[in-house]
């Protein structure tokens, strides 16, 4: 066994032992009445709460009220009980709270999730979109994630233009149910992209290998290739493709491929040789139809191990 593997095994064993150590002793707090008090009036919520992931902590039975059950999220209920109801008597009534407060309340527990590590700088948070805009804690119709709507309909509620793209002839199969928006996006915010100068991909998730989300499925595009088509690495797949949907085949940005290629291969930009992106050769007579379908010959356009011109 190599040293690195031994260290890994030791770390895992230590973590396992630590995990099995006793939990902290709960400390009682004033104002908490326990979730049982809530059942009386909120029977509709309680009746199916065992299906809610938040019930897990309640089922453990080893945590104080401020960390579990109704009061774990809504705060101490004594005043609410004494007043016989009313939103203003609930410490944390989410329907009347500011987005920032809602976010902080949820992060009390969920901040430890890696998926939410960048939530404070996500575009959703910047624009006041908070947890309860997408998640319905008590009345979720979705099978997972407590979404406020079913699957990608949650996202389409605001992103109608994206829905329109998924209804185009060429598209990723989101409406067909084989994909979801979160296959490619992390709505809670992402780490900085390793492509496109680290800017502007809106919450596009990366793979575990630091690549663009497309590579999760289209793994063969990752390479490494002896001859990379540099823009795919440097600027990402969306340089040539629309990721959601397109009226053009293969999700391309243009209906004919030669215009897509020539808009770069015209000597402009810096190119990889600092002399502009290579022009097509003088033998390529664009008026000849066979030269209008560039990828007929340049078959390995995403990268090749055998040909600098991507011919094989």
């Amino acid at each position, binding site marked *: 066994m190599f040293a690195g593997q031994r260290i890994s095994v030791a*770390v895992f064993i230590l*973590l*396992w032992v*630590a*995990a099995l150590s006793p939990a*902290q002793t709960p400390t009682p707090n004033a104002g908490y009445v326990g979730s049982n008090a809530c059942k009386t009036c909120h*029977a*509709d919520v309680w009746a199916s709460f*065992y*299906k809610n992931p938040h019930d*897990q902590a309640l*089922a*453990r039975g080893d945590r104080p009220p401020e960390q579990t059950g109704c009061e774990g999220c809504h705060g101490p209920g004594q005043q609410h009980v004494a007043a016989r109801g009313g939103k203003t008597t609930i410490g944390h009534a989410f329907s009347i709270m500011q987005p*920032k*407060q809602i976010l902080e309340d949820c992060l009390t527990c969920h901040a430890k999730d890696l998926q939410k*590590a960048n939530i*404070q*700088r996500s575009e959703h948070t910047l*624009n006041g979109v908070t947890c309860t805009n997408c998640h319905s804690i008590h009345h979720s119709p979705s*099978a997972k994630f407590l979404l406020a709507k*079913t699957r990608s*309909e949650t996202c389409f*509620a*605001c992103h109608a*233009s994206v829905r329109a793209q998924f209804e*185009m002839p060429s598209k990723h199969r989101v409406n067909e149910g*084989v994909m979801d928006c979160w296959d490619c996006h992390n709505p809670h915010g992402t*780490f900085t992209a*390793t492509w496109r*100068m*680290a800017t*502007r991909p809106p919450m596009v998730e990366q793979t*575990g290998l*630091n690549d663009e989300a497309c590579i999760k*499925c289209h793994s*063969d595009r990752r390479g*490494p*290739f*002896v001859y990379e088509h540099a823009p795919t690495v440097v600027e990402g797949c969306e340089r040539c493709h629309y990721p959601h949907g397109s009226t053009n*085949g293969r999700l391309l940005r243009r*209906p004919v491929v030669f*215009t897509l290629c*020539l808009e770069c291969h*015209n000597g*402009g*930009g810096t190119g*990889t*040789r600092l002399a502009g*992106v290579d022009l097509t*050769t*003088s*033998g390529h007579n*664009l*008026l000849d*139809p066979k030269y209008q379908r560039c990828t*007929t010959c340049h078959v390995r356009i995403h990268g090749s*191990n*055998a040909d*600098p011109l991507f011919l*094989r």
Partner: protein
Amino acid sequence: MGRQLTTLILTAAAAAVTLPAQEVLAPTPEQVGSTRGENVGAYNITDSFEFGYRFASVFGNDGLYRSDINYGNGLRLLGSTLTIDSKDGHGRPFDELLLTTMGLGRDPYESVVLRIRKNRLYRYDMNWRENQFFDPGVVISGGEHLMNTTRLLQDHDLTLLPDNRVATFDLGYSRNTLTGPALTSAQEFDTSIVAFPVFSNIRQQYNDFRAGATLHLARFTFIVRRTWEFFKQDTVDSQTAPEGSIDPIDPSVLQTFSRTQPFHGSNGAWLGTLFTSRKHWAVNARANYASGKGDFALNEMATGTDRFGAAANREILVNGDAQRPTLSSDFNLTILPTDNFTIVNHTAVSNIRIDGNSFYSEYDFATNTLTMLDFNFLGVRTVSNATNLRYNPRKWFGVYAGYTFSDRQIRVEEAFNLPGVPNGSGSSLYPQDSTLSAVSGGFRLQPLKPWTVNLGGEVGHASGALTPVSDRNYHTLGGRTQYRTRLLQLGATYREQYNENAPLSFTTYSSRSRQAGASASWAIKRWVSLDTSYTKLHLDTVGGLQFFAGLVSPQLQTGYDSIFISNIHAANLGARFSIGRRADLFVGYTITKDTGDGRSAAAPPAASGTAALLDSVQTFPLTYESPMARISFRLTPKLRWNAAWQYYGYNEQFQLFSYYENYHAHTGFTSLQWSF
């Protein structure tokens, strides 16, 4: 009681609102609302199966239909859902079991989702998907690169001690395969760009194993994860019968052809993350290193006759290995000085290097020449820093602002040995630096509790654009307003994104896209709800061109622009009706209509010259529409009969490549759905 009833009614109504306006035919969405199921011991069980026959009748271009829709005929388990939930959270051996399936039985889109969870001990998630992909390849190659493949994806994730407050552990496995027949092409014998169609048997497989641990200590969370990915591509291209050139005037013939190109490799990755969140600050730091290694070989052998009628053959041997180590790290500091003010600073560094040893050798038997090529090195290093400020002085008002700076260095090193090419040996290094500065800002208004308004934008400038179409001088501007109540949701959005790159040294490029849309969802009554949206997507681009063309012989052309204009109007309307307590009816309609640049007739044939050719590809108007209807009858409390019809109509207004790909299709299903 009255209050509970009201809540239930509102919940059901809200659920009705959430039902999508336009969806594919099956499975039929279950009505949601009150709790259902049967109690067995300490568990509550719900179950649902929808089994039926799907039909499809296609007229016109079957290839494009299969590319866009691909539904066929046959019996299907259109959908199923099984949930088993422990009512007290102490079930054995699990507390939650969720199993959903879709399209099983050779639908082109099949999926199975499984979750099994035992409180405190484990959570297992499985996601299995199969996608039957067909593409005629017309756009990219005039039909020479047809694909008829199957992509199979499966993900398995096991989390141990999922809600433990000290440590959790996770194990995962993913598999991704792509298999199936395809057509491709091969250029052989000389450099006059003669390509022959060949058959391709695509075989790709990726296996990914993961193991990780999360430790919570002193309010810090530390995550370490190890990933091993193994991939192999064993696609074989072949041709056994004589095949003529793709070019009809080219007399070349490919007698035999074979190409094997195995590519096997592995990626190992480490991820380490540390973060904590306190009342006034939060920190997260991440480092991710992934090694990448691939070994490859290529053996290509072709025989035939060249364009002069002489016997020709060619063998190409390539072997080598490649590495692609990538390192990315992020440091994110969040400061929360007051309850309504947030400062986030984010620094990221990433470094990608693609390098390796490769020996490319091409031996030309006719001339006894050997061509050798070595590896190209590509390295991309990016450092970026972004600061965002968010201030919410009032519940109804918030602003944000941000500044991003990014520095990127690209290094390309080319080593080559090209016989007969002056200075065609040695190596060249091309380092280049680019910087990007961007300022963003926006605000949020909430004049009324259900009404929000968001406006925001970003202005950026980048130097050293890699390509003419890269972001150089760009801005985005967006706005959104929404009115949301339980029964009524109204929204309107606008977003524009301009990238004005002129002037560059050789050419110009300008891209302007604008999106505007409005949507509404309204649960008018308990028995009727409407959902509709309209979106206008505008795109116009102008890019300078340089290329070779000529009616007699090709000459360098410099005075032309590539112009593309698209004006897409997309709308959908869905209406759902509950008829008594027996039936649900859904009718919907979607349309995507690209009106192009407004011209009513296609440009003259491209054969008349370069200008005509470019004029003919500036716009591509088409209409794609899909009305549908679905009805669901409750036969018994547990049994429903469903029937649906959906029409797809694809109509290109102008033809590309001298023929239309239009089609229309009637699809649908009839099914029985059993549920409790």
